[in-house]
């Protein structure tokens, strides 16, 4: 399965983009926070919907699919079971409350 790795940043960092006719699912999410402070990570799903009956000119949407806080000096792994309900439709980015290369985010994902 493909993986994507970024480090914590207060500017959203792209993990991967879901193919046009597919949906994405996270099968694991690992955050290793060796920074000096706690890190709160949000995984955002960013896409522009298609025009529909009710919305003729849709605009870009950013939806938080996952959020977790990892204490300084510790790591957290979320399993597929806890992530299975988070369907991803567009570009998936990670955004944090800190910028620190010592806090590493690894997403394992599947497209179907």
């Amino acid at each position, binding site marked *: 399965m493909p993986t994507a790795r970024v480090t914590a940043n207060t500017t959203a960092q792209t993990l991967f983009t879901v193919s*046009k*006719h*597919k*949906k994405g699912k996270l099968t694991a999410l690992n955050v290793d926070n060796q920074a000096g402070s706690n890190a709160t990570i949000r995984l955002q799903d960013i*896409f*522009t*919907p*298609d*025009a*529909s*009956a*009710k*919305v003729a000119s*849709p605009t870009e*949407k950013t*939806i938080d699919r996952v959020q977790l806080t990892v204490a300084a000096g510790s790591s957290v792994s979320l399993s597929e079971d806890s992530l299975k309900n988070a*369907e991803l*439709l*567009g570009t998936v980015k990670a955004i944090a409350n800190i910028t620190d290369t010592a806090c590493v985010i690894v997403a394992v994902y599947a497209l179907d």
Partner: protein
Amino acid sequence: MIVQLSPVLAKVATYTRPEDLLLTKGAWVRFSEAWPDTHRWAKGKVFEVQQEPIIVPYATSYILPGDDYKDIDLSNATEGLKLYPENQAVLYETLVGFKPGEYLCHIYVPKDKYVYALGEASMYPDVADAARKYLGAKTHLDSPHTAPLLKLYFIKDMPAFILRLYVLEDVDYEKVAVTFQINKTQLREIENPTLEQLTKALLLRYYTELTGF
């Protein structure tokens, strides 16, 4: 014009030949007398398929909000997906499959003429109605994209098939993905069909014959 095989075919192991599911060389098709004179080349006639299947896969997808819908025109109209043939004596047999998701599909031909209504006057599909949004609606279980069971038949300039893709309420956004396997067939008219050819040919009805009962 429209055929849906039993979903059980997607779930059980069966001995199935390709020609049982797709039109192949030597297969017979018959157009009913209800086709209008604008399709005179086909109206009431029997044809034989000229070649083995030439299958063209295609797909389309849309991200739509919950409790909202989008109409997809499959014809060659300007805003359509352009899945129809451009020549007479050509029939496109199209398998339509749906990827899993929280959505329904209503089928119209032409626009605003629903196929799957019942006889009582109020029993027509309506995505704005809490109950009737499910009336006649197809889901990915009816025609999974891995084993599509819904077939549509297209000829040049026939009325447009419309797929109304409706995302269920209580969903923020859904990606609706529809797959097509288009079996391109060339037809040769059988000028004096035998009784066997008349009775065994796949009957393609005009849309006016699909409703009203």
